[in-house]
């Protein structure tokens, strides 16, 4: 290592250090460069498309289960029963936001746009159970019972109406075949139930 190199090294070290220090000094002095946001007091507005906690507008939900099918982590579960007007009635709709990864696939597929992302992102809890959002606060069993009752009532009514009609018909044409009551007398179906899959299938 020659003397020239030696001195060059020293000069280079001093010059590059000075250059760096000038930049840091500029930022140090210039208070307007500060970018910190004082979080709890200052908040930035989440953007329009922000994917926060999920929210289901249960009034518009048709229990089509698209969201359940598309969810990669199975965080949505719902129970629905067929109501008196043949439409499904939600008995429960739960989203486990502790498991949700906010991918937004469920919102995309929702045909009625009842499932949406809100701008909420703050939640803390000491146990995982609290991280399950219940969108229907009533007890599922109660709803089921009520719907079943409605269905039964409707069925009874329909049967009565059918009977009356039959009576009328019978009066008009006694030879008509007996068909109507069979359709109305089906028991209330509780079939579309998306129960959580067993734990072992969700590894990962």
């Amino acid at each position, binding site marked *: 290592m020659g003397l020239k190199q030696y001195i060059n090294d020293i000069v280079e070290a001093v010059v590059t*250090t000075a250059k760096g220090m000038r930049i840091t000094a500029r930022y140090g002095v210039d208070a307007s460069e500060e970018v910190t946001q004082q979080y709890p007091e200052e908040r930035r507005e989440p953007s329009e498309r922000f994917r926060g906690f999920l929210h289901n507008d249960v009034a518009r939900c048709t229990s089509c289960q698209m969201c359940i099918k598309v969810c990669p982590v199975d965080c949505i579960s719902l129970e629905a029963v067929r109501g008196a007007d043949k439409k499904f009635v939600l008995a429960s709709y739960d989203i486990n936001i502790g498991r949700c990864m906010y991918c937004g696939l469920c919102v995309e597929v929702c045909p009625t746009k009842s499932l949406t992302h809100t701008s909420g992102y703050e939640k803390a809890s000491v146990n995982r159970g609290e991280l399950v959002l219940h969108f229907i606060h009533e007890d599922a069993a109660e709803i089921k019972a009520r719907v079943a009752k409605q269905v039964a009532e409707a069925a009874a009514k329909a049967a009565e109406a059918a009977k009356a009609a039959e009576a009328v018909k019978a009066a008009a044409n006694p030879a008509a075949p007996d068909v109507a009551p069979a359709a109305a007398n089906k028991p209330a179906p509780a079939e579309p139930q998306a129960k959580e899959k067993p734990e072992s299938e969700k590894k990962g």
Partner: protein
Amino acid sequence: MESFALSLVKAVPALSGVPMWTVTLTAMVLTAAILLVFALTFGGLGSYVLRKVAGDIQVRIGPNRVGPYGLLQFLADGAKLILKEDIIPAKADRFLFILAPYLVFVGSFAAFVVLPFGVGLIASDLNIGVYYVMAVTSLVVVGILMAGWASNNKWALLGGMRAAAQIISYEIPVGMAIMPAVLIAGSLSLQDIVRSQGGLLGVFGWNLFHNPFTFFSFILYFTAAQAETNQTPFDLPEAESELVSGYNVEYSGIRYAFFFLAEFGDMFVVAALATACFLGGWHVPFFHAEALPAFWGNLLSLGAFLFKAFALVLVMMWVRWTLPRLRVDQLMRMSWKYLVPLTFVNLLGVSLWLLLFKGKGIPQMIASLVG
């Protein structure tokens, strides 16, 4: 200290009935207490300033929640450190583990004794002041090595070893860089060194401007001292990204606080020494503090001294937040291949200058030419 006690007895007649040694002892304890409080406060406020400076440089805000402008952050931190669980690893060498932080702290705190804070504000004006500072700050290395060894942690051990190599290597350039001031003053006493810089309006008498060699001495001293105090770019003993936290990785709570305070104490000692040796110490520019009544003179000179020292501390922080870290072999190379030869050359230069120009500095020569 006896002389101070004697003057105290003379000034306050009521004390004449008390045995002399009690007065001396009380005075000693009081001085030590004042210095300790100063050191602790500096440690606390220093940490606040460090973080604030870091925040400013890094386009952040820094502490601002506790107290106005976050000024009381250090109290909160201190309370946290005191209340924290004191963990001693099961396989640590308990005795050494407990002893190490105190040694480190004592090493940096003992240096405060000879720092000339003002015209008459010096705990003990030792006639070997500079030498004493160099000696006691070397105690730090024993403590750090002890901490590294006793923690029974490989990272801590590496940190301790690095610290030992580093601090011992950098003692030499530090000592040699400070020699010019000693040569000019002709004394090892810090108070004498400061007094020797009082002429020419209290600015141009500074050793910094004495001649080009002293100017370089200052730069070299500052660089080497940065290494002595384990500041970035020489913070290898606690290199966070390599050694996790180095020698103090196993320490927590109040024991960690001692290392922390010692680090800031060291920072101040280094800055104060630079101030005393190169920046005219407590001399107030364009003003004669010595001529004032004792109280005001001391107050003013104390202010000047602290201002200069703090300014240097700020520069140290500024460097700290700008530069990356050296590697351990480069650190050694820098000391032995660059700083040591350069400080020797500098010392030679200063000596020759003093010999050739009969101890006169450039400003002095200009002054004699002009007037």
